[in-house]
């Protein structure tokens, strides 16, 4: 039975710093108050950001309660959009588009090359926790197919050399930032 004193916002507040909750509240104001489902997406984005770059069942449940929507509505959104991760991810998530344009322009070769280079399969993470590989749907960059996205940057017209360059650049940047610390 429902407990009337139950605070539906509690779980989320325990999970996130006050700053993040404030951010979600800000997003909620951007949608009509009687529509509860639109803020699911921005809320999940915030949660993922503060939650080690992935979503747990617990955090999705918290979002559902906070927004007063059925939990399954949150799962639907989280499992549909490829930018939400349902498992622990590597530091850099390499998202390769395999939709129609990219596929026609050789995305399977891109995937194969990445898998060989990183020695992981789609959906896996390298042992050092640096890279994860993910297959995604069209990212609206068909003009530059085949493409991939990593760390919010699009890389288009990919060749094997280009891919190697991208990976080593990221690795180098990572190493230098570590030294800098």
């Amino acid at each position: 039975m429902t407990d009337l004193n139950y605070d539906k916002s509690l779980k989320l507040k325990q999970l996130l710093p006050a700053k993040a909750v404030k951010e979600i509240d800000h997003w909620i104001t951007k949608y009509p108050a009687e529509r509860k489902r639109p803020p699911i997406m921005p809320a999940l984005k915030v949660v993922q950001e503060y939650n080690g770059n992935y979503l747990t069942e617990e955090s999705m449940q918290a979002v559902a309660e906070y927004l007063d929507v059925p939990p399954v509505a949150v799962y639907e959104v989280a499992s549909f959009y490829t930018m939400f991760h349902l498992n622990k991810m590597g530091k850099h998530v390499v998202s390769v588009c395999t939709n129609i344009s990219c596929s026609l322009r050789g995305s399977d070769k891109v995937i194969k090359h990445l898998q060989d280079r990183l020695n992981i399969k789609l959906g896996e993470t390298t042992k050092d926790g640096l890279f994860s590989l993910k297959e995604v749907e069209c990212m609206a960059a068909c003009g530059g197919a085949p493409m991939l996205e990593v760390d919010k940057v699009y890389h288009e017209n990919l060749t094997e050399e280009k891919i190697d360059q991208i990976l080593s650049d990221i690795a180098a940047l990572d190493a230098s930032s570590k030294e800098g610390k």
Partner: protein
Amino acid sequence: MCMVEVSSIPKAVPACATPVADGMVIQTSSQKAIDAQKAVMEFLLINHPLDCPVCDQGGECELQDLSVGYGNDVSRYVEGKRVVTDKNLGPLIATDMTRCIHCTRCVRFGQEVVGLREMGATGRGEHVEIGTYIEASMSSEVSANIIDLCPVGALTAKPSRYKARAWELRESPSIAAHDCLGSNVSVHHRRGEIIRVVPRENEAINEVWLSDRDRFSYQALNEGKRLLKPRVKRDGEWVECDWQTALNFVVSEMKRIIGASDGNNFGALVGNNSTLEESYLVQKVIRGLGCNNIDFRTRRRDYSADEMGNVRSGLNFPLADLSNMDATLLIAGDLRQEQPLAALRVRKSTGFGKAMAINPFDGEYNFRLSHEIQPEPHLLAQEVACLLAAVVSKVKDVAADVSDWLSDVSFNDTHLAMAQELIDADKSALLLGVYVQEHSQAEVINWLAEQISELTGSNWGYMTQGCNAAGNNLAGAVPYQADVGGRATTGKNAKQMLTEGLKGYLIHNCEPDVESIWNEQALENFKKAEFLVALTSYADGRMQDYATVMLPIAGNYEASGTFINIEGVWQTFAAVVNAPGETRPAWKVLRVLGNLFDLKGFEYESSRQIHDELKEKHELAGDKKIARKTPAALSAASKDDSLRDSLGLYLVDPMVRRASALQQTPKASTHPISISRVKT
């Protein structure tokens, strides 16, 4: 699959999603349309496992039917098919999710009809899966309707899984027996065994739906421990015997006890879902012997209106109107537990109208309440009185005795707002839930509700326990009146019979030691009684300890009869299957008893004759209305005497209590709320 060719559009388009426009010429079976339909079929079958030979839906599958018409003989796809893990949706629904074609009917049913979204479509593209995501039993009380909705064999009924092929089943119409709506069902049976029960469309009652309780209760008949032969207790041991011996014993004992006490020391209790015919014959036998102690209301505390005569329980408006009320006020009404399909109708009405509640518990609603008051149970009448006072403050022409009665009743803004909603609404209704009739001030609340409905121009409805409260009343299974309101010397009511203790009892199709508010006292008194004859379908339960004779009677679907639903509709049904063993329809047992007692008027050859006799009397007499008198001033009811210890969803009658799948659902274990939780 609804692709059509439209003159002005070069491509075939889906009919269901294309708005009608002026001058459109639509072809449904042109070559272009048929090609498009076939193409869609081909897509639907790309990932479908085509496992019809082992699928429960085979023979009654929409996809199968369509593929016969539109599918290719051989698939052009050689790629591997997708496989989806099955979901565990609980004890009622079996899943084979690889068969799912993502029509999302099951998702939309939860979202749109029930208002409780449990299923969803997770994942994307090739990876879409229908399910609950996190494993969870369906918790809704109408969940199994998605079995009927699912066009393929992805969702099938777990209890009847692999039991029969659709084409082996015979279908017979009947009436469900577990709430006061009287949902129409089709019983599917094979060689005398009920395989499953499905809804039968009746827009005026259940539309196309069925509650899980009405759908799966049949299991008790097949799997419950049935009583197959009459039994008599001799020196504390049960001895099976033939009908003659058992009935002769019953006759001599009843004669002895009733004769020795002028009928005062014997009592009959009738179950909530006994048929009209059975209840009528029980009272005819009992009254024929000069005993007036008969009742079916084992959950009633307030009998103060009995002396006024016939109280017709029910609605004063068509049930279907519940779907389009502008305002509905629930008074102690827990529709989802009590009449699940009525809750769906009220939910429908909240699409445009308002629902409000004065419920002495923290209910689970599948619709939004615009105003809610949660009094403590013993203060329910006070709260309704406040609402009446609020109504009176807003309307003219209030009878003097009503305003006098209310002279020191105050009200707050919520009462005022509720009153305003009821007054403003074109169509409105007050629904008094089962608990109202169990309340120790039931008659005051009834009177208040009547005043409110009169002053606000609202309809009213008394939702009753069981499926035949109206029928039981009419049949005279009450101490204050014989059949159809005929005069009777007043006898003892259920509370008196159960708490005072009698020498002898006849209980028909009920277990007051479980169902009654006074169940523990009932048990004690039953054990103390010299003689107790139980007409029952089941051989288990505490009845074995307290009964002296057990007579096996046919269960639901095994005998013919009539239920009168809350709207006053007489629904007569025939037996669907034969009763097992030496079990006999109760009306036949009672007829023979009547004959053995040498009573007049027991020459019936069919239950239809009993029905006709009553119907004729009823038509002559009509429904008697009672004029309630202004009650005495209101004082708080005692807390102990107003506990809301309602029967849980799956505890309402002997049959439901023995339906195994229902008993495994999460709803079976959540105990009904007994005290209100008031927001602090």
